[in-house]
């Protein structure tokens, strides 16, 4: 074993830890989902899960919410990352702190704060009615829109930081070179800045999507039982229905989605960089 390979041994404690407390229980869970009533290997649990329209609805909602959350976070994060990479001194510090600080406030605290904001007699409805925009309070709490807005808020830093990390590597001379070659702002953005920061966008989107697909606390507090997501369904299966196999099956589906996101994003990232370092 040469010196470079020996250094890989430093990862051993962490890997062992993950193997014992992540891979092993997960494998047990997976095996559980692949057994039929007699304990033989079978996909029966999956067939049963997908046969139920309610389950399909939850799966579809989970993916839809995750996708829309990712899009909303991307729309907010890209300009922020651009500003962060161009700003200097205190302005940069201020943006960075504004991005990272909310991470230190627990999701539960935020979610309760939002319910104050969103509820029928909450701040938003109060303001809208006071301005005469609406006559009666609109329902925001327990809607998918509220969930997407809340989730995008929580996951925004996970979108901003990977994009910023790539953007700060982007030499400012490249858009400048494009300008001197006759490229206007739009051409510069779509042919230079965006393609070169796409790896950051892909990484950020993969993070945000994975986090949104598996979120539990935010939907529990914002939409409650009314509009379930896969994670809530898993919790309900284990805690209330005591149906471990259903819980294990949904967990496996969630895991497959996560793996698909990771593989898909690495494939995409490799494509857009075209083998560049």
């Amino acid at each position, binding site marked *: 074993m040469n010196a470079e390979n020996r250094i890989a041994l430093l990862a051993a404690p962490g890997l062992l830890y993950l193997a014992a407390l992540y891979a092993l229980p997960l494998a047990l869970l997976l095996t559980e989902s692949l057994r039929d009533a007699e304990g033989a290997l079978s996909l029966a649990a999956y067939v049963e899960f997908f046969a139920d329209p309610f389950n399909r609805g939850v799966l579809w909602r989970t993916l839809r919410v995750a996708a829309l959350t990712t899009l909303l976070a991307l729309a907010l994060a890209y300009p922020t990352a651009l500003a962060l990479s161009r700003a200097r001194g205190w302005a940069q510090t201020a943006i960075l702190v504004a991005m990272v600080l909310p991470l230190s406030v627990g999701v539960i605290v935020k979610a309760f704060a939002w319910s104050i904001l969103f509820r029928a007699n909450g701040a938003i409805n109060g303001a809208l009615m006071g301005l005469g925009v609406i006559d009666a309070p609109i329902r925001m709490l327990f809607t998918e829109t509220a969930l997407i807005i809340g989730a995008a808020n929580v996951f925004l830093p996970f979108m901003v930081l990977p994009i910023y990390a790539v953007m700060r590597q982007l030499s400012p001379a*490249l858009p*400048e070179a494009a300008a*001197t070659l006759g490229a206007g702002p739009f051409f510069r953005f779509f042919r230079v800045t965006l393609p070169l920061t796409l790896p950051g966008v892909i990484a950020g989107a993969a993070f945000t999507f994975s986090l949104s697909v598996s979120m539990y606390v935010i939907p529990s507090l914002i939409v409650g039982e009314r509009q379930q997501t896969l994670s809530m369904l898993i919790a309900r299966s284990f805690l209330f229905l005591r149906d471990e196999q259903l819980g294990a099956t949904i967990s496996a589906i969630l895991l497959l989605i996560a793996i698909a996101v990771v593989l898909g994003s690495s494939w995409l990232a490799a494509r857009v960089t075209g083998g560049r370092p």
Partner: protein
Amino acid sequence: MQPAAAPPAQVGGGARHLDVAAVSKSYRGQKVIDRLDFEASRGELVSLLGPSGCGKTTLLRLIAGLVSADGGDIAIGGRSVTRTPAHRRNVSVVFQNYALFPHLNVRDNVAFGLRARGREIGARVDDALALVRMGAFADRAVAALSGGQQQRVAVARALVVEPDLLLLDEPFSALDRKLRETMQVELKTLLWARAITAVFVTHDQDEALAVSSRIAVMNAGRIEQYAAPGALYDRPATPFALDFVGLSTRIAGRARRRDGEAVEIETPYGIVRAPRPGTAPAEGAPVLIGVRPERIALADAEAAPDENRIAVRLADVMALGSRTHLHGAAEADDRLLCELPGMAQTVAPGAEVTLRWRVADTLLYPL
């Protein structure tokens, strides 16, 4: 590459193709460019030469439109572009590290400007690549190219759009010494052949002397002197230009009195005479004397009437192959440097020698 073309007939004096008039630029209250005037004739290759921080790159960025001027006017081909954004100026830039687009291959890098302007590409990209002898590399990734090849691509990318003006920011600084000289000759020949007006920004005096018809020596946001290389070297207008371009002997002294066509100066090494400038310094005024080192020789025979002679002790003798540098023991900030051709072996450090040079070769600056 084509055989060496003749240099453009016009060396200044022609119609002003680039005209920078009284341009100023400050960053955070600090003046980087201070009411600066600069011009270049059509087809001329000129250099902005100065130490880092002198404002030369800012001036280049002002001309390119990458930063906007606080005041003054910039005109290209008789048209004011002061308020024109960079992408409408038709001024190409070869950046210091070339700024090639890493996500595009060589061909697409060169085609970028044509695409951005919605122009037909046709054979232009291949022609431009052939011009810089990079035709065989069209489909390569730019990261796979050497420094010299990247520079050629950057030049092709800048020229394919047929710019009204080409700006080059330290274009050779990333190349090693040998390649640098080859690329200088290559680029100069190419630009001459196509009668392209170009401004080089450099801190390297050899580079400026090698490529340009005129050199603007910049210092602290101003142009100290703008002249042809020969004139700049032989007649530096200021002590800064004297120091920044080439080597020199420099001696601080005091003006004594006028003596016909010459002024006598009292120095720690004796009386030295210099040609009388337009406005002669007052008696007792502090002055600086400069002499190019190759104008100085060791005295053997009698003094001629139009010569200066000073006796010095040699502090060091540096044999540099084609030439030998003799350093005299000097006072304070003075520098006594004599350059002899070849490997002079007759003198050694510690020797007492007499340096001589013509009065006409003596440069005089008020301090």
